[in-house]
């Protein structure tokens, strides 16, 4: 019989830093983390690179000068090729949103579905601190992932389109698009945490994530009613489209860049609030 039990450690003061380390260990001690993050990142970069490559091929086969518009008509701006847009294709980044959202959701519902939450909250009864630490770690990791994916996507696509108007990071629109896309990852992950904390069920949380991030914006489209359009504008997807320079022409109720950043901030803050409150109120 050892005497390890007899000489335990002296109590350490409660530090938030300790909770950050604990959440960091939890995140990286699951193999699924590596899988989800790497496949998510490669999928987005892959889709955009593939699109850039086929655009480059197509543009190379086209005549040097586009045919002149018929007399009397002005050149249609939508027909002009935008190399930057190739890096920020909607479908690719929507997949990224779902991946990021899932990472956040899994971080929370994984504790509930496994029952680990009881062990966690017995070790740290301060539920608010637990959720905030988890949110901080998830935000940090997803910001890095988002930055890597957005930068890589931009560099790869613009390299492939170097002969067809490819831009560099020095271009201010490109920088904004990269920043907006990078921060989309932590934003969606926080939304996922909130959904995971409320739903606490694997399939339910993922469905909830897709509904909230992708289907909800579709319901609030069109410009017939201002309030409908404004709700649609308040969605993370619309905000991202503005930041990525991805909207089709100027609409009546379009989102400004400042508004887009405000939408990001508001969603992130609300998501953290919802996650904290949901976990605090839960009976586990």
């Amino acid at each position, binding site marked *: 019989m050892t005497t*390890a039990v007899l000489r335990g450690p002296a109590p350490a003061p409660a530090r938030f830093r300790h909770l950050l380390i604990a959440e960091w260990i939890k995140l990286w001690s699951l193999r699924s983390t590596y899988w989800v993050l790497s496949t998510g990142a490669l999928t987005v970069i892959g889709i955009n690179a593939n699109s850039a490559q086929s655009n480059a091929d197509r543009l190379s086969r086209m005549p040097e000068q586009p045919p002149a518009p018929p007399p009397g008509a002005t050149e249609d701006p939508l027909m002009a090729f935008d190399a930057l847009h190739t890096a920020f294709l909607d479908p690719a980044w929507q997949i990224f949103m779902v991946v990021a959202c899932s990472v956040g959701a899994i971080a929370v519902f994984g504790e509930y579905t496994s029952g680990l939450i009881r062990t*966690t909250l017995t070790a740290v009864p301060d539920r608010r601190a637990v959720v905030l630490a988890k949110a901080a770690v998830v935000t940090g990791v997803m910001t890095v992932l988002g930055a890597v994916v957005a930068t890589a996507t931009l560099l790869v696509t613009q390299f492939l389109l170097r002969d067809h108007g490819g831009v560099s990071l020095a271009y201010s629109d490109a920088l904004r698009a990269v920043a907006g896309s990078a921060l989309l990852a932590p934003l969606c992950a926080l939304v996922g945490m909130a959904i995971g904390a409320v739903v606490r069920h694997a399939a339910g949380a993922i469905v909830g994530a897709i509904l909230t991030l992708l289907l909800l914006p579709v319901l609030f489209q069109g410009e017939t009613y201002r309030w409908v359009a404004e709700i649609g504008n308040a969605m993370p997807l619309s905000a991202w489209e503005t930041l990525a320079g991805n909207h089709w022409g100027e609409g009546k109720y379009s989102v400004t860049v400042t508004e887009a950043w405000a939408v990001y901030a508001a969603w992130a803050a609300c998501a953290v609030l919802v996650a904290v409150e949901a976990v605090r109120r839960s009976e586990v």
Partner: protein
Amino acid sequence: MEHVIEVSELTKRYGDTTAVRDLSFTVRPGHVTGFLGPNGAGKTTTLRLLLGLNTPTSGTATIGGRDFGAARRGLHHVGALLDAQDVHGGRTARAHLRALAASNGIERRRVGEVLDEVGLGDVAGRRIGGFSLGMKQRLGIAAALLGDPSVLVFDEPLNGLDPEGVQWLRALLRRLAAEGRTVFVSSHQMSEMELCAEQLIVIGRGELIAAESLGAFAARGGSQGVRVRAREPERLVSALLAEGAEVVPGEQSLSVTGVDAERIGELALREGVALGELTPLAASLEQAFMELTADSVDYLTGEPR
């Protein structure tokens, strides 16, 4: 009293079901206290309320006079094993404990110590998903020991342990109590508690049935009479009946209540009956437990819940 568990008029309702009703008891340091009750008696609910995982409908459950759920960190004060399955199967035992230790500012070295203490040192790098229930119980106990807590709360820790593990855990529980800690261990089997608990809290249907020492509880079972085997029982039976005893004939022996073994021996000698066996039956804790919990079920039947 820093380490005392105090449950006072605790009630917990889930919708129409009352899991715990007006429950009050105290658990003191220095000995192992068994928390007994049949399945569904409300033991786990009580422990979850005690640890702040659930909120009581009314009443209080405190550890050291404070609501544990309001504490900032738990491991240095209370080590708990509620359900061995409350782990993520994808992590290794070491990673699981390292995360828990880190959350309470406990150094990494301690993880190795507790893993060795519970006998999981060799499988520390294996994923928990592949562990047997007994191994998970040991892991849960290791987690409870991480912070060297003064209070230990275990819910059915003997489930799934092999005989060696059961012996080990009983010794560990006694040792922890002897060190002056409060050790509160639930079980639905009296026989599990018989060998290590000194105090018992017994509940049934969410209500308190008994809170007393093991000895006092055993006495509740009452005398179980004397088993008598005789070659010619007929003469002995009439003598016993004349003495006012109750005799229940069995296949091989008689079960006699109302007179003690000594008197039965005298009667047998007087009647000239040779005895094959004369065994006073001690009240068994198991029986006392069964009788008491059966009673609690009986008088509640038909009562609106």
